[in-house]
């Protein structure tokens, strides 16, 4: 058989047309009459394989979805956290298929708060959350104009992880009452042995500001109030930064670029860093990942209070799931998310799947959770600590310009931590830079 030019062109055109037809057949219908029951093949975008496993298993878990009007399956696409929002917007603008559910990282969510993006893309979850009232924790950061658009997966309760063996050897009481006391002890330890009882980030702006936020939430401070107004220059915020700078200057707090990076791993490995305030998930991603050989040596406790006020807990990070609105499977996705995230069974399954802490406050006191022990933490009944911390979980708010604030505060906070400027001056400088940049 000979192939001439005309034949080649005709063949190529035919293959192209067939390919287009095949591609069109692959697309799934996203618009149309809502499906009220039956088979619901949900699509999900997330960055975390843990959530992918949980939702995939939950779809087949009769205990969770057995009595639902829908029969679920979940197809997961792995997408990096910043790209999830970018792609949601791109797909919506291009009128291409959107996922039914999307995992939105806490720090990325402010992008959804600008110009009605959340309102236009996501289903309002307030009817689901209202019924639970204050019993459902951490809805505020995902609230826009009084409406909740995503449900948090993990409370990310911050506690003090510490090396019980090192504390005992150095004579540090495990029940120190205040930060001020702990920093004094830390200064002495640093002078004697070079070890640190905490860390601060001196890496990127995001890490620097997140570390600061964790400390100031505990003190009762914040970056924005419920109306989205800036509250950076509050007394609490200044006090916290002063205390952190004092800790760095005495060596009690060790400056490390990235809490998950190699330098932190080295500090943990050589027992230079013997305590740190971090959220519950740091035990898995920070401690167990970097120092598995220290299993049984670590313990957790609630964070010492500040002498001037505040609570015994804080929070850092998190990922919430939202449901894309106005799709055939929107109702099905809402039902699925409610079953997975707002029922005791769903919360227990989530903890079993990836150690995600419950967001329903009442569950911390139930035997299902109270009886759990953690081998890495020396078989400690860990929910005694998490429960106490969750009871005082600070409430905080986000705003559309949070990314601008992070970039504005990062440099000045770092200089304050290094002792190159005062805490109040640093925060004022950051606020000035922020106000120059935000759109009127």
């Amino acid at each position, binding site marked *: 058989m000979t192939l001439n030019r005309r034949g080649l062109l005709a063949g190529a055109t035919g293959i192209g047309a067939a390919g287009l037809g095949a591609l069109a057949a692959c697309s799934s219908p996203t618009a149309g009459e809502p499906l009220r029951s039956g088979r619901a093949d949900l699509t999900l975008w997330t960055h975390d394989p843990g959530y992918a496993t949980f939702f995939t298993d939950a779809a087949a878990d009769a205990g969770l979805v057995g009595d639902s009007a829908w029969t679920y399956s979940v197809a997961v696409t792995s997408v990096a956290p*910043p790209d999830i929002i*970018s792609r949601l*917007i*791109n797909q*919506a*603008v291009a009128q291409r298929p959107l996922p039914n559910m999307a995992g939105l990282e806490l720090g990325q969510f402010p*992008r959804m708060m*600008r*110009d*009605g*993006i959340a309102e*236009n*893309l996501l289903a309002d979850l307030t009817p689901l959350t209202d019924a639970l009232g204050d019993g459902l924790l951490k809805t505020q950061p995902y609230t826009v104009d009084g409406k909740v658009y995503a449900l948090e997966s993990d409370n990310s309760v911050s506690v003090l992880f510490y090396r019980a063996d090192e504390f005992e050897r150095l004579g540090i009481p495990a029940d120190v009452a205040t930060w001020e006391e702990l920093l004094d002890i830390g200064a002495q330890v640093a002078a004697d042995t070079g070890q640190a009882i905490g860390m601060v980030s*001196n*890496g*990127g*702006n*995001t890490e*620097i500001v997140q570390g600061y936020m964790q400390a100031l939430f505990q003190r009762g401070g914040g970056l924005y109030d419920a109306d989205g107004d800036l509250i950076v220059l509050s007394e609490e915020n200044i006090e916290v930064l002063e205390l952190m700078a004092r800790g760095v200057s005495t060596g009690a707090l*060790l*400056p*490390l*670029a990235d809490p998950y*990076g*190699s*330098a932190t791993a*080295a*500090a943990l490995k050589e027992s230079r860093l013997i305590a740190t305030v971090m959220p519950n998930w740091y035990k898995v991603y920070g401690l167990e990942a970097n120092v598995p050989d220290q299993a049984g040596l670590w313990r957790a406790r609630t964070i010492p209070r500040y002498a001037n006020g505040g609570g015994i807990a804080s929070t850092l990070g998190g990922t919430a799931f939202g449901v894309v609105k106005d799709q055939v499977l929107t109702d099905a996705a809402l039902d699925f998310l409610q079953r997975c995230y707002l029922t005791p069974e769903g919360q227990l399954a989530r903890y079993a799947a990836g150690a995600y802490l419950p967001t329903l406050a009442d569950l911390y006191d139930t035997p299902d959770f109270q009886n759990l022990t953690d081998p890495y933490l020396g078989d400690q009944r860990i929910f005694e600590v998490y429960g106490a911390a969750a009871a005082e979980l600070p409430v905080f708010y986000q705003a*559309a*310009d949070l*990314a*601008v604030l992070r*970039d504005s505060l*990062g*440099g*000045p906070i*770092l200089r304050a931590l*290094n002792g190159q400027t005062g805490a109040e001056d640093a925060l004022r400088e950051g606020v000035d*830079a922020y106000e*120059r*940049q935000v*759109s009127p």
Partner: protein
Amino acid sequence: MTATTDTAATRRHRAQIRQRRWAPYLFISPFFILFTCFMVVPIGAGVYLSLTRWAGLGSPEYIGLDNYVRLFGDQSFGASLANTAFYTAFALAVVLPASLLIAQALDARGLKLRDLFRLVYFLPVVLSPIIIALIFGLIFDGEYGLVNAVMEALFGFGGVSWLTDPWWARIVVVVLVLWRWTGYLTIFFLAGMQAIPRELHEAAEVDGAGPVRRFFSVTLPQLRPVTAFIAVTMLVNTAQIFEEPFLLTQGGPGESTLSVSMFVYRAAFQRQELGYAAAAGVVMFAIVFALGRIGSSALGVGRTR
């Protein structure tokens, strides 16, 4: 009958002429169609977008030149321009001469392991930027970094905050640029040097020229077209630098290593200010275009000798 045949033949002839007249345009049309779709339209859309306020969804709101006014009063944009100028000046003043000198060394007659050296110098270009950034992060870490450890061992001090001090962070970024791109440019210079006729060097040697004189009187003039091309390419590429500061320092500490490309990215994909990002992109385009034209014109890129 004859008249009918004549008319048909004339029609066919005219159709053939028409076909021949349109054929060249048809053949060159793919370039223009693609150029319009992927260059003209995006640039036009970018310019239009720069005159709007748009978060990504809904209709862009026309605001005239407000984004440009805001841009030129934005200290962050000023910082990113200054940082980019620093990176570009360093690339031209250090990376370019360094690669020329390395190429000269590799071009030496009788050099053993020449291919191994070429491979080693070229290696940074093919390594993943993410791996490079991780390795540089380890080397320059303030607490546990290799550089500080070596300095401590050799000189008794090693407490330099390489990545957390604004000035040192800029230096580390340009060191990364130097390490990453010198080998790549060396390959171009080496290719240029190997194209220089040996007779020219031999004639200069006979006339009593030493190695330094031969370098300045033979090698450099002969390399002028290559040097001009590399200089302009480096200028344009460095003016759009993104990967090195983004992966190594994320623009920090503060905004001390922020480049203009990062500024555009940050405005668009971290702050959802697409109109503002487009305005910064248009300004960057204008600057890079102008620098590229000035460089090409001054160095005679594309001119026949």
